[in-house]
């Protein structure tokens, strides 16, 4: 069944057992993103320790794809350097924009390769990207703040 490509076991696992969920302190930036067509929402915080993202915490509501995507994001990006996280971000955005034609690099994307099937469902790509857009926004704000303080 086609549906299995979308709802891969990994995605359902992350949906049912999300990693790193819940809002935590301290944090350097706190952003709220919504998907206006479906009402999915996420609040995401990042804390920085020098060049390293020392915590990503989040809370939100939405479909399995958007929630699982946030959980995978946490697994992949938490504890990385800002540059490292942005590299993963770029690879994930590219995968989602690929209409299912891009071969994902498991080295970079880890569990996020399971989202390759989502890219074939244009209506769901935005769901998958919601937390990643929030991450980019939050990281940019946190880095800008840090520069101001220096």
């Amino acid at each position: 069944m086609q549906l299995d490509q979308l709802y891969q076991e990994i995605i359902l696992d992350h949906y049912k057992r999300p990693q790193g969920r819940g809002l935590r302190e301290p944090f350097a930036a706190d952003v709220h993103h919504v998907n206006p067509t479906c009402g999915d929402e996420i609040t995401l915080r990042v804390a920085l320790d020098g060049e390293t993202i020392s915590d990503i915490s989040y809370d939100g509501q939405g479909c399995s794809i958007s929630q699982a995507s946030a959980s995978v994001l946490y697994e992949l990006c938490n504890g990385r350097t800002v540059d490292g996280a942005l590299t993963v971000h770029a690879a994930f955005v590219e995968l989602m924009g690929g209409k299912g034609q891009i071969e994902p690099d498991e080295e970079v994307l880890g569990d996020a390769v399971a989202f390759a099937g989502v890219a074939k469902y244009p209506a769901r790509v935005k769901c998958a990207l919601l937390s990643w857009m929030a991450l980019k926004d939050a990281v940019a704000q946190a880095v800008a703040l840090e520069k101001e303080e220096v």
Partner: protein
Amino acid sequence: MTALTIPAGMPQYDDKPRFDVERVRADFPILGREVNGHPLVYLDSGNTSQKPRQVIDAVARYYAEHNANVARSVHTLGTESTEAYEGARAKVAAFIGAPSVDEVVFTKNATEALNLVAHAFGPHAQDPRFRLGPGDEIVISEMEHHSNIVPWQLLCERTGATLRWFGLTESGRLDETNLDELVNERTKIVSIVHMSNVLGTVNATARITARVREVGALLMLDCSQSVPHLPMDVVDYDADFIAFTGHKMLGPTGIGVLWGRLELLNTMPPFLGGGSMIETVKMTGSTFAPAPARFEAGTPPIAQAVGLGAAIDYLNAVGMDAVAWHDKELTAYALDALDTVPGLRIYGPKVPVGRGATISFTLDGIHPHDVGQVLDSLGVQVRVGHHCAKPICDRFAVPALTRASFYLYTTTDEVDALVRGLDQVRKVFA
């Protein structure tokens, strides 16, 4: 079928207006197609309806045989297309019981019709009934489509007037307990939905209309969902304006209707300026044609109007009483069937009375997006999200809903397919 004996003297089964659903279905080419390897089960008619062959052919025939611009040429084609366009207007007028054909203004959709009326209000309006400023009030409800909220919010921002609204009861009906306070001497217009596109509620308007008349305000009904499904008589309803949209009633996209009392339309300022809406134009200023031309600037959606006319012919041939009765039976069937699905909660009236064939629900712990996706893999097309009526979601504290909406071509088998599909959804996310 169970043999039910209805006592003599009571309305008998055959007294109800009926039609052959299978014969109707045969007129809709799209209903023959498959989706993801399953027969199409189209349960999104509240979003847009499917089109019968008769409408598709009428549009094609217009382009193939009569195409020309309207109201600007003496030639034969121009005359034919003007007759086709104006003929469609006459069909619309008869369909809703309009006292005059000139009261029917063609717009792009219901949204434009609602904006057109909102635009007529302002501090400098000629007619005091449209004069609006700080201290004046506009009343809508919490169950409106965004297109009957945002134009009024924008108007209030422009003029300093105040927007107020009816709340909703737990069962999804208008809360009229504060009617006399809400609609008062400061109220300029009450604009409410006739049938909710989310809850399915059909609002009983009589008490509200009486109060609107008492305080000398105007009444607009958003009939986008009701005109396709229920017999409509604008005189009976005693409204001042109604709006509806062609694509939800078997017609093409790109055509909508504003009906308004002629005396009001002719005191309202034009909406868009351009060709066809003028009386005379000088470099120093212009005067404007009376309604409906006043509000139809530029080349109108001619083929779309012709298509809408064909849709009305189709609905008339089936009979709007029969359509309404079909909706009612199907809704009763679906409410019972959905009640058997564990964890399913319906938002809106749970009895098939004072409601139309649109049912919104949630499934415990499963997001509507996921519900819609699994149903789609089974060929079942439902709408998910906030349905352009976010305040309803806020009112009932749900982020999104799944909605099944029916029409004259919908069968009980399709309702069964929905229920089976929901079992599948629960399996995937168990």
